[in-house]
């Protein structure tokens, strides 16, 4: 696999992560399904994992960048697993709307597992890491749009979280935006 093909696949991966984050935002804004603290931390987990993929796009593919993505995905997966376990026994309730029969934290766990598997598969090909093949310095359209979307979502999450929780910790089940409530 050439470095450019690796970069293309990483761009597709980053777009997939950004799509997950955008859908979570759509659920929050459209259906007023406000995220709980663990849900917010799972979003942060996607940024932690996506950062490794973004590094592959900006600085070129490296095993350490895939390692960053895997560590981020494991941290995010631990948080989503915690939330699944909170509601695993029937009758212990759930948080938020379900999508195709599964709640968002369950989908998040599946997505984190997919990131780990995807990175492991990408790591199988060593040729992308060789320096023999020159890599185009300027980012092409798809990697650039993936990066811009990812960055935009990171900034949007900063504002959304401040609006929801203010300067402190979030309530366990937020009913309204704390910052907007005080106005």
């Amino acid at each position, binding site marked *: 696999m050439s470095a450019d093909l690796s970069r293309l696949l990483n761009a597709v991966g980053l777009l997939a992560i950004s799509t997950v984050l955008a859908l979570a935002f759509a659920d929050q804004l459209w259906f007023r399904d406000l995220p709980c*603290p*663990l849900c917010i931390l799972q*979003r942060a987990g996607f940024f932690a994992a996506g950062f490794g993929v973004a590094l592959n796009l900006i600085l070129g593919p490296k095993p350490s960048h895939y390692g960053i993505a895997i560590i981020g995905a494991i941290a995010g997966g631990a948080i989503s697993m915690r939330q699944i376990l909170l509601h695993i026994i029937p009758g212990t309730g759930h948080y938020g709307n379900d999508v195709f029969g599964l709640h968002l934290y369950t989908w998040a766990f599946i997505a984190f597992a997919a990131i780990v598997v995807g990175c492991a598969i990408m790591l199988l090909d060593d040729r992308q890491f060789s320096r023999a093949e020159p890599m185009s310095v300027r980012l092409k359209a798809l990697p650039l749009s993936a990066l811009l979307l990812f*960055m935009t979502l990171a900034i949007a999450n900063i504002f959304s979280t401040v609006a929801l929780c203010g300067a402190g910790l979030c309530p*366990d089940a937020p009913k309204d935006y704390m910052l907007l409530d005080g106005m």
Partner: protein
Amino acid sequence: MMSLPFVLFACAIGAAWMRHRGVSMGFWALGLVAMLVLFRLHFTEVLMIQL
């Protein structure tokens, strides 16, 4: 406080964009630590997994 990981990860992406790899890794590590500390702070509910 909950937005701290997002701020740090955004700084990490910004630093990587400017090709400061070491700085960006530092921001990422701080973001991950902030995320895990916040996770610990919200670790208040007891799991009910006994049958």
